[in-house]
């Protein structure tokens, strides 16, 4: 039977089908159901994600100085400060950003966070999940809970606690003085180290749970069969478990990269980007540009655009790596 005939017969059937209380045919119902489910999500995405992104890109090319974009308020303020009138000026603020030493410092710190997330949290989360999954440690429920615990505590609380703990007048110097009397806390020459440590401590539990959930999906009989055939633990890991988890590893890496680039709350609470902007990250640089001292909204939007571009690039690289090396189950 030719395709057109099948389609015609189906249409006939649909045409004869009883209509529902809204007077719609089955096909109409299908279409309506489709849009009912898709439209809210699509609209939310359009207005909450896509529009702000494109609007931020637009603002980064203007001299916008705050206040209403359009309408009478602009006219009133325009009389007082005519320079408030918005106009497109091109890539001036991108140039300003690339000439700012703190932008590069923030970018470097962000890369450190990406590094510690991808090469710290994920391997550590995997190792711990693997140890628990293979029953290599006792009290797995206890370890699982303790390692995951930081994930359920508010980031602000964690930031305040660690900030107070490591402060010169905090508990850590007091503890050190128990072993080294007369110790006076100084300023670290690497102020990002405490921040990186807390990030590692805080988020490793998330990856532990992700890996553990996916490890539990692997059929243990495959591992046992390999063992009977003489495979070592490392060989089972290399040839059975890691390939099976390659997709999860990539997903985790994407989560880690995007999460690292938008790091804000913990660092803002712990250090506010200080001292002397030494713990600046791009999101704090963006926030301070917009809301601290003399607001510079186009610069803040330019920073956010760079964050988007870096994020997409790194996720693209991760996907490419996965395509080349992953998924050999």
């Amino acid at each position, binding site marked *: 039977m030719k395709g057109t005939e099948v389609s015609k017969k189906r249409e006939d059937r649909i045409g004869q089908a009883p209509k529902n209380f*809204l007077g719609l045919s089955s096909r109409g119902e299908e279409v309506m159901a489709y849009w009912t489910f898709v439209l809210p999500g699509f609209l939310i995405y359009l207005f909450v994600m896509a529009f702000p992104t494109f609007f931020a890109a637009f603002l980064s090319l203007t001299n916008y100085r*705050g*206040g209403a974009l359009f309408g009478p308020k602009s006219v*009133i303020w325009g009389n007082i400060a005519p320079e408030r009138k918005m106009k497109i000026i091109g890539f001036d603020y991108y140039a300003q950003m690339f000439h700012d030493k703190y932008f590069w410092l923030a970018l470097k710190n962000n890369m450190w966070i990406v590094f510690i997330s991808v090469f710290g949290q994920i391997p550590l989360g995997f190792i711990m999940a693997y140890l628990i999954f293979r029953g290599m440690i006792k009290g797995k429920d206890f370890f699982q809970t303790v390692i995951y615990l930081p994930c359920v505590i508010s980031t602000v609380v964690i930031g305040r606690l660690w900030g107070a703990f*490591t402060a010169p*007048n905090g508990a850590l110097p007091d503890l050190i003085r128990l072993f080294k009397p007369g110790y006076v*806390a100084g300023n670290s020459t690497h102020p990002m180290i405490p921040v990186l440590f807390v990030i590692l401590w805080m988020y490793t539990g998330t990856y532990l749970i992700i890996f553990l959930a996916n490890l539990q999906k692997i059929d243990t009989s495959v591992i046992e069969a390999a063992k009977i055939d003489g495979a070592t633990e490392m060989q089972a890991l290399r040839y059975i478990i890691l390939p099976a988890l390659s997709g999860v590893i990539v997903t985790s890496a994407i989560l880690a990269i995007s999460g690292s680039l938008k790091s804000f709350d913990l660092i803002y609470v712990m250090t506010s980007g*200080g001292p002397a902007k030494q713990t600046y990250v791009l999101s704090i640089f963006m926030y301070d540009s917009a*809301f601290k001292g003399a607001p510079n909204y186009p610069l803040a939007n330019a920073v956010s655009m760079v964050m988007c571009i870096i994020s997409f690039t790194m996720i693209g690289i991760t996907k490419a790596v996965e395509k080349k090396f992953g998924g050999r189950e």
Partner: protein
Amino acid sequence: MKKLAMVVLSLVLLCSMVFAQAAAEANSGKTTIRVLNYIDMSEPNSANEIAQIWDKFSAEHPEIEVIREDLFNEPFHQKVEAYAAQGNLPDVMYAWPSGRSETLHKDGYLYNLKSLLERDGLDKVYSATSMADQAGKVGYVGELPNGLTATSMMFVNTKVLRENGLEMPKTYADLVAMVPVLNAKGIEVVSMDCKDAWVMQSCLFSLITGRFGGADWADRVFAGETDFADEWFVKSLTAVDNLYKDGVINRNTLSIGYGSGRGDFANGKSAFYIDGDWACASFQTDVTTGQALFAPEAQKTDIELINFPAFDGEVIHESNSAVVGTGWAIAADIDADKLEAAWTLVKFLESEYAQTWRLTTGASFPSLTTIDVAKVCEEYNLEPLVAKRSDWYNNIQVATPVIDGVLPAAVFEVINTVLQEIGLGSTTVEKGVADVNAAWHAYIGK
């Protein structure tokens, strides 16, 4: 069809309820005022403000409904900037005379209160300094100030000095001489809470620039007679560099959050503590708990307030950095029918009642000339620290500019960062001078 009708009917019902509520509010005859309030979380008695000030206002003015938002420190300033950016400023807001509220003043977001003050004959009731032009605009009072604020108060733990056989310092060299004596016992000489970058600039460096640059350094800078590459500024930054190098201030103060060092000072972990005059309140008794960092008896013997000792080479002596105090402002684009209600609120917040209450808590000294501080101290049996504070103001010989009160944010933000970099030892005085001067010339070049 029945179900659809039900859904539509429910929606109509919901909408009518929402709009009926709004209409009821509109017909209640109340004027609703949105307020952004600054509440100092580091002061033990600040929370009482809600009962003593805001609840009292609501009781006295049932026709005005106040929707209030309370914030403190950086989050307050950042929220103001966010509101300004949205074009959604509250009707009444706490504001600084310039610097920290630069956007509000410069871009015309605030109502000029001068005409209202003159209309109600209040311009003569507040002190002349608090009625001075603000933000460099002639005839402009953007916010009605609490009073005058001295931004560099040096608190002395006299108990620590006594126990270590030390005298009250007269010069910077005296402070340096205390370093080995106190550090040997694990005590810091001067403590500050410099984690927030504004603290060093506002609470000490402004005083230092006044000492080396004179009371008129800002006027000369704006007149183009000097800039930040000149000797006075180099000497000022060098003085800060020396404070760290000499060990008078520990570099680790850059990691101490604002307000959190006061307890250490009271517990004798440092001999001196530097903050603005507003910090005085945090050493007084919390009336809700009866607890105090310095109990009233201890305030008589264990704590003194002084001016920072003399620097070698300073051009003026016994000066302090001072600025017209913070206060209350009204949004420039406030609805005409709300203006009188907002002005009623601002007048109440700077009334004799409110200013006397703030004096009793130590939050601020009054800008109203009708308040007799000595009489209030006696009548309310105020703690000894209040009287000491009053004497301290009398000992200030010259008032010099506060950096974030006179310079634009584009410049004072760079100064803040340079001061922290010097504190870290990650930059030199020469480099810091160059950075600040470059920021200044970039600003005036615009």
